């Protein structure tokens, strides 16, 4: 039985209808299938001597991937992050085969899995992967990425202007966003007893032990910096360490119940958490089950991020991968994906298409942020990888490990 139809079968079995990616992640988290990144410990225990540096410099300007028969393209993406019919449509259009694998569960975990191959300049068997901004930055810095031949991706011009030049890839030579999202505050007004407006409301002593934050300092410390009146994108290493110190203080007071990954959604839905750092797409999903929940982009602002399509070094089918990128940047196709996954859509013209079919979705500012929201969200900072690792180590000390 083909993989997709098996997936669909299980989705229908559980739900009676196909479910979205985040909802399924939530369910998987509930079933404990996304616990930390335990499964990849072994993968990471491999040899560590030698250097991560591989690849070598590529001349970005002269990149050219000849147009050939598509053949088979292998893509690794996050689970339930696509409308599966898109895969079939593409296969039909280009007369190729798309091996769409949903094995990208966690940035660090996936990196640990493929690190040794990349380091040794060997193919990892994926023509395209979809890491989050900071992880994409790491791949680019280490020279593990093949530039995109823009001639093969004319639709790339549909990319939202606000996403056109992230600090890690100023002219999008290597990456294109798959979906974007906002990190801000999720809360239950029935539990908190009042409307929240500021990030610092997370530190209201009345919510002691009912607040959670993410393990990842880019989200948690980024928001805390906003609460301190600083710009998290341009903040210095010391600023971040100060924000982490503040999180540490609150944690020692018992204010923060847990540091989580995806699994916060279960605690928020069941009422264990009253307010927490949260991802926009999750809340669109959670609200469908529990209308009490609210997603708040605080007055100080929120963090924004993208998961980016990129092509690893030493693979075979770059032209195929680029053709697929071009396909998903067609607004019609992007609209299909947006309607399914509920994150915010990086492609221009999608809102107008959805407005006809599903006006409610098209008006959702979490999927199509208005200008006010866009002005109020900040991309992750970009640090040297060793600085990043130092901050990560500090944050891990606070989160207990």
């Amino acid at each position, binding site marked *: 039985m083909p993989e997709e139809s098996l997936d669909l079968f299980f989705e229908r079995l559980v739900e009676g209808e196909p479910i979205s990616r985040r909802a399924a992640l939530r369910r998987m988290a509930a079933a404990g299938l996304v616990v930390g990144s335990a499964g990849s410990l072994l993968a990471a*225990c491999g040899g560590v001597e030698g250097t991560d540096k591989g690849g070598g410099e590529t001349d970005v300007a002269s990149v050219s991937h000849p147009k050939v028969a598509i053949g088979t393209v292998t893509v690794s993406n996050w689970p339930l992050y696509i409308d599966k019919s898109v895969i079939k449509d593409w296969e039909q259009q280009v007369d190729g085969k798309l091996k769409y694998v949903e094995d990208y569960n966690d940035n660090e975990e996936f990196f640990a899995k493929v690190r040794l191959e990349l380091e040794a300049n060997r193919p990892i068997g994926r023509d395209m992967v979809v890491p989050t901004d900071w992880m994409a930055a790491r791949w680019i810095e280490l020279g593990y990425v093949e530039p995109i031949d823009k001639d093969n991706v004319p639709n790339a011009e549909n990319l939202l202007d606000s996403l056109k030049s992230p600090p890690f890839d100023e002219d999008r030579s290597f990456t294109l966003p798959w979906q974007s999202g906002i990190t801000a505050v999720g809360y239950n007004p029935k539990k908190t007893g009042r409307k929240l407006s500021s990030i610092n409301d997370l530190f209201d002593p009345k919510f002691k032990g009912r607040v959670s934050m993410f393990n990842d300092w880019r989200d948690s410390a980024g928001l805390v910096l906003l609460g301190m009146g600083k710009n998290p994108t341009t903040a210095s290493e010391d600023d971040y360490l100060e924000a982490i110190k503040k999180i540490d203080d609150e944690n020692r007071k018992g204010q923060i119940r847990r540091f989580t990954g995806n699994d916060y959604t279960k605690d928020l839905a*069941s009422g*264990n958490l009253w307010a927490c750092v949260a991802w926009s797409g999750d809340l669109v999903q959670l609200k469908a089950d529990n209308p009490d929940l609210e997603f708040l982009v605080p007055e100080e602002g929120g963090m924004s991020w993208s998961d980016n399509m990129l092509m690893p070094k030493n693979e075979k089918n770059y032209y195929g991968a680029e053709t697929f990128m071009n396909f998903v940047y067609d607004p019609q196709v992007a609209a299909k994906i947006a309607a399914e996954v509920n994150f915010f859509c990086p492609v221009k013209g999608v809102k107008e298409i959805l407005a006809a079919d599903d006006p409610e979705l098209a008006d959702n500012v979490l999927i199509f942020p208005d200008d006010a929201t866009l002005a109020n969200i900040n991309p992750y900072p970009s640090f040297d990888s060793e600085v990043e690792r130092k901050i990560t180590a500090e944050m891990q000390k606070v989160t207990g490990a």
Partner: protein
Amino acid sequence: MSQAGATAPAPALGRRSALRRRRALLPALFVAPGLTWLLVFYAIPVLTQLWVSLQTGNPRDGFTQTWNWDVYPDALSEYHEQLFRSVGYAATATLLCFIIAFPLAYFIAVKAGRFKNLFLLLIILPFFTSLIVRTVAWQTLLSDDGWVVGVFQSLGLVDEGGRLLATRTAVIAGITYNFLPFMALPLYASLERLDRRLVEAATDLYASRWTAFRKITLPLAAPGIFAGTLLTFIPAIGDYINAQLLGTTRQFMIGNVIQSQYIVVRDYPVAAALSFVVMVCVLIILALAVRLIGSRQLSEAAVA
């Protein structure tokens, strides 16, 4: 003829000495599979950890061997809290396991009669489900608005507005639950083999039931107690699922630290050093246990 006479015994002698040599090799051959196992799955990994732990560098520029022994005092001073906590939680959970499992095993071995196998099956039954799924079920069970917390609150065991989930109690309870069979089954094995007539003889000789229990049952169950303790305590030290799912960062154990050092921080030397420390701790505990009760009794109980 003389030539033949001279050479004839020689092959026989050769055969005999070859046989003798093979006989001498025989014990080594018997030990070989076990030794290979130990080498491949224990010695080599442990030594690799030791080797990696002494390197310095970073993931970007690579790691080189510098025999940096300082990593041990550094790692221990940073993470001794989690290490002690692991030992403390594992010891508490082992004790609780014993308190719960002993009466249980005694009942099954002595009183359950023809339902013995049914009860044994009931102990093992939850283990057909994955450890993680079982532990996540506890999350639901212990949630703040759940009935367990409600009952505990009305009994005054949990403060009003207090919680069970994300506390030390939840983590230790989780470990106890998840490791119970490792205690119950060896205990059952040694209690089941116990000759009931010895207890009868003791009571015939005017020993009270308590004295008979103390002087007969308990010593004869000792191998089971030791095996159960080791089988529970050793894996419990390295456990991190319960702390991750039922606890907070204030309950994190050494396993959580090692995981995050490997995957998130990517400080491989520190992660390797901590793994090495844990393995050495386990080895010391095992050696002490062997000294205390002898390896034969230990393996007998474990095998039974």
